[in-house]
């Protein structure tokens, strides 16, 4: 039995840490309360399913911006193409991934330019 002891400890350490990680991420860990608040606000005025346009202003995620975008295009999420170059935006994408169902069946990409910035259109479904 002792010859298997280490590998049992090794496996148990990985499994228990992974379970603890799941708990930590679900219950203890929150990047940004403000983001969560905005996402909650988002859920309150959009249908439970569908696609959202979500305009990000790179580092500022104010509710008026979200609302204004819903007036224009209420069914899609918009993320700037250069999103990853802004750490805050990256955090928001993290939050989005956690809070929305990634719907690969509807995955399409359009890139276009408007007067402000270049965007990618990504379809998501809120859960």
């Amino acid at each position, binding site marked *: 039995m002792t*010859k298997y*002891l*280490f*590998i049992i*400890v*090794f496996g148990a*350490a*990985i*499994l*228990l*840490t*992974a*379970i*603890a*990680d*799941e708990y*930590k*991420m*679900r219950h203890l*860990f929150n*990047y940004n309360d403000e983001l969560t608040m905005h996402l909650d606000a988002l859920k309150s005025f959009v249908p439970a399913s569908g696609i959202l346009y979500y305009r990000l202003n790179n580092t500022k995620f104010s509710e008026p911006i979200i609302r204004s975008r819903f007036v224009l295009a209420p069914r899609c999420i918009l993320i700037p*193409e250069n999103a*990853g170059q802004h750490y805050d935006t*990256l955090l928001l*994408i*993290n939050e989005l*991934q*956690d809070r929305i169902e*990634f719907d*690969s*069946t509807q*995955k*399409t*990409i359009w890139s276009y330019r408007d007067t402000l910035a270049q965007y*990618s259109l990504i379809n998501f479904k809120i859960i």
Partner: protein
Amino acid sequence: MQRNSIYIIGMSFCFGCISLLYFWGLIVGLPLVANILLVALVCIGVFVFLLKKTPDTLYALTFKQNLLLTMGVILMSTFCLFLARKNGDWDAVYIYNLAAKFLEDPVHWRQLFLYKDQLSHTDYPLHVPALVAFLQRITGGGFKESVPYFVSLFYTLAVATIIFLETAHVHKLLSAIVFILIGTNTYFLNNGVIQCADIPLSFYLLLSFVFMQHYRQTPKEKIWILYCGIALGCAIWIKNEGTLYAFLFCIVFYKELFAKKNMLVLSLGVMPFVLTLLIFKIAYAPTNDLIKGLGQESWTVKLLDKQRYKLIVEAFVQYIGLYFYIPQLAAIAYVFLSIYKQKTPDKSVLIFILFALGITIVYVFTYQNLSWHLQTSMSRILLQWYPSFWFVLVIQLGKLMPSPGVQEEIDIRGINKKP
């Protein structure tokens, strides 16, 4: 080889096989149940083969070594839990976990390759995403956070453990020091838990060196070449750099790998991965950034631009000083000791110079802003060599200054007691 090493290596080989089988399953439209059965059969086969065929001259670890190993693994897991972040880090979010999400969908997974931006790198091989996607599907998607974390954590702990287990018989003290250094290196642990592919790549590269070391000790055992082929195959199926490293590894160990008697076993190990990579690159992946970039600008201009070389060397020195100063000091000590003992450095040490040259060429021809490219990737490139470097260095230092209490060998099953 240590029995504990065999289990860990078996698990890592199974991960490689799962990734291949799942990707093939997606291509041919295999139902999940059939894929699970196939994976189970192959994994059982891998373990049975490893346990029966691996030359198992075991080195008995002392009580203190066992204690250090067990405590080390527990402490590293705890560190990793503190360092863990939601959805991993930048590359994990935009490359590996994104690809995994697509691969979870058996019908629309090809939509992944619609991503043409420079951030998603859909030309990267799919070892980690396919593995994560398979595990997510069989766990019903109920452990969104912990599945990619579990994969990352396995490779992180496995790197430190394999180095310790496979060097403990060479030099007790050095192996313990290196194990502690790796286990307390927060840069290494942090990169281990951010769910990227650098640590898995470094792990398979390390395995290639371990198997080559065993083969050089017992050249009659062709099995090491088979394992080496599988490890190299897994490396090339993880990241594009893996192909470069495998190529350079094959050049340096040409005599061992391509000996007439070894050709067949090497092919058996590496070919499934090479064929899958070729199919992936030809049929699915968009053109690689580097190759695409070559057509945009004159490569001769870049090749002759001295400023680019200066930037690369400066970044190299900067990141070694920042994150890898202890390996740097150890390398200097090894050079001085070699001169003192009048020994020529082994070719397994020189391979790292080749790696550096290979990566320099990649940076010279990159079409991206060179400073940005170096800033975002150089430290992780060095990290990919970090475990192999320690392994090779401990083996070589062990030869230069043999440990007085070298382990006695215990041949548990008597396989090696040949007349």
